[in-house]
């Protein structure tokens, strides 16, 4: 579904991702693990088009989208939940969703569907997103991403920095999404256990390179931990 091949990314003169290949199969879940600073987020930003790789290509469902801007990729079925529970802080929760639902025929239905996934959001719709807790904002962010009817969902550390009670909710929501089918997921995660539970493929990144990769599932835990030197 999504394929990054030979991607090199630089900030100014400093290259931080040195030729990375990552593939997310259709209906599959790939997870990228690695320490902070290994280049995971940078890689995801290139995948959605917020950064332009210096070399390499980004293919979405076989189509080369390297030159497309982020919103064009979104319209082709790519959705992105960035790191850090991002929302439009001055917009209400409901505006945050409506913004994406605008102009979609199925907007209302999808909003309902997304809210079913996170029922905790319903009573908070009138509140400004900036006033929500981190966990609520993250749920909002995922809901917002789902409104675009994605075939490919990219999640950057969706449970990072969120109170433990909500973490479970979010993890379960993600798992339910991956099981539903019709959706491929690329996940960056530090919680190895959860990551491997969800993933069909894993990649470990270190210093801008993929240092290990393989099939997902709890069985690969040992190999991953070794690769990550935990």
């Amino acid at each position, binding site marked *: 579904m999504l394929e990054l091949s030979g991607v090199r990314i630089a900030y100014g003169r400093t290259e931080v991702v040195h030729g990375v290949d990552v593939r997310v199969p259709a209906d599959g879940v790939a997870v990228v693990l690695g320490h902070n600073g290994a280049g995971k987020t940078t890689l995801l930003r290139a995948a959605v088009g917020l950064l332009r790789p210096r070399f390499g290509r980004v293919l979405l469902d076989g189509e080369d989208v390297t030159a497309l801007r982020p919103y064009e990729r979104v319209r082709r079925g790519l959705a992105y939940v960035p*790191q850090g529970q991002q929302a439009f802080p001055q917009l209400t929760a409901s505006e945050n969703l409506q913004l994406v639902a605008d102009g979609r025929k199925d907007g209302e239905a999808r909003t309902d569907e997304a809210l079913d996934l996170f029922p905790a959001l319903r009573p908070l719709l009138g509140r400004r997103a900036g006033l929500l807790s981190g966990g609520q904002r993250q749920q909002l962010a995922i809901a917002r991403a789902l409104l675009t009817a994605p075939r490919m969902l990219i999640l950057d550390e969706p449970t990072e920095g969120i109170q*433990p009670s909500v973490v479970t909710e979010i993890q379960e929501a993600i798992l339910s999404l991956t099981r539903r089918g019709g959706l491929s997921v690329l996940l960056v995660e530090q919680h*190895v*256990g959860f990551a*491997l*539970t969800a993933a069909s493929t894993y990649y470990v990144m270190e*210093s801008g390179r993929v240092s290990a990769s393989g099939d997902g599932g709890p069985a690969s835990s040992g190999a991953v931990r070794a690769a990550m030197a935990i």
Partner: protein
Amino acid sequence: MRQDYLEIRGLRVAFDGFVAVDGVDMTVLQGDLRFLIGPNGAGKTTLVDAITGLTPATGSAKFDGVQLLGKKEHQIARAGVGRTFQTASVFEQLTVLQNLDIAAGATRRRLGLLRARRAVPPSVELAMETTGLTRLRDRLAGELAHGQKQWLEIGMLLVQNATVLLLDEPVAGMSADEREQTGELLRRVRRDHVVVVVEHDMEFLRAYADSVTVLAAGKKIAEGTYAQVQADPRVQEIYLGPGHTAEVS
């Protein structure tokens, strides 16, 4: 030799109702290479920001008996507290030498500033040696590799005469070799500095930390040696993730 220490009591930072740091106590002694860890959003960087005057905070942060909170950034810096940033922030349009020379000069007399540099100050020379940048002294900082920039930043702290060094993810994005060199560098400087390192890299942490403070959701949840912290079930749960607990223990 007198021991300097950084003493933080009840430090609290709130933005628009959101509490980023929630009553943290921490004491760091000279010679103790302290690592500060915690998941993203735990308030590590905010803590550093508060100590260095970038973010208003309540509570207390004293160094050498001097209350740092409420002072302006440059006054805090002059009180001997220096920091680096997550993304190396060196002056890209200036050379390595110029970067270090500026860092060394905050206490220079005003009129002295109007003269060009005649000779390289010994402290700068030393810092270039310590950080291994002597060869690159006339290179523009913007042209340095990522790791070199980080070292340059640490070098700037050294010549700045800071006794407290607050380093925000100094080894992020570095290669294994570079990490090792950085670790050695930190070991060298901890003897006469109070060093606090915000870091995620567990391997690096294990290799070089004398002590570790763990933050989560703005609160301190554990403190001690690496082994002590690693064994703490709350740390395992919050930092390393639920799936991790069983296997480690």
